[in-house]
């Protein structure tokens, strides 16, 4: 039961972060948020191409 709750909380936190990361990146791309804020939040850009 506890494990289930912990799991759910951890996943919820992670999903919330996924959504907020996207919002912050969108704002950055539009020039409304400085890169430092993204770095502070731990958002890592990739160059997979």
């Amino acid at each position: 039961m506890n494990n289930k709750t912990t799991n759910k909380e951890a996943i919820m936190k992670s999903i919330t972060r996924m959504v907020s990361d996207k919002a912050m990146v969108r704002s950055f791309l539009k020039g409304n948020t400085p890169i430092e804020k993204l770095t502070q939040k731990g958002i890592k850009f990739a160059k997979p191409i």
Partner: protein
Amino acid sequence: MPNQYNYIFNKATSSYNFTTKNNIEYKIVFIVDETLDVASEVHIENIYQIVIEKITDKVEPFDSLVSKTITDIITAFFANVENALIYVCSENDEKAESRFKVFSRWYRNSSLESVTKVDNIINCESEGNIFIIYTSLLYHNKNSNVENILEAYHKIEKILNDK
């Protein structure tokens, strides 16, 4: 007549940029996504979230070259078959459902035959509010880690939608 727009990588924004014939600028970014790790027994590498942003505010007339250019970028992304991609739309953004539908339509019309797309629509509860998050996962059919990726992806939906 080109069949797509040329795109360039901008180091300053870490984005792949292109501008359409109507002077609409697009930026596409890949960020490292560790969401699946939380639901997995093992560390899963090469998972990225894609952010596709129309930078120019004005309304753009239909332009088929935009989706073709995005297909080209994503095709290049899957040159590494171990890469996987998450696309997410949250209801925090009022256009989430329509963005999700547009992305699904783009995939159906794309020529990405060796890439599979699966969707998760997740009901989330945060601070007493319930909202819907639309997600899609794209992976190459030759991805050697697909079992772990899919298990984690479906586990997220199962745990969050479990009452």
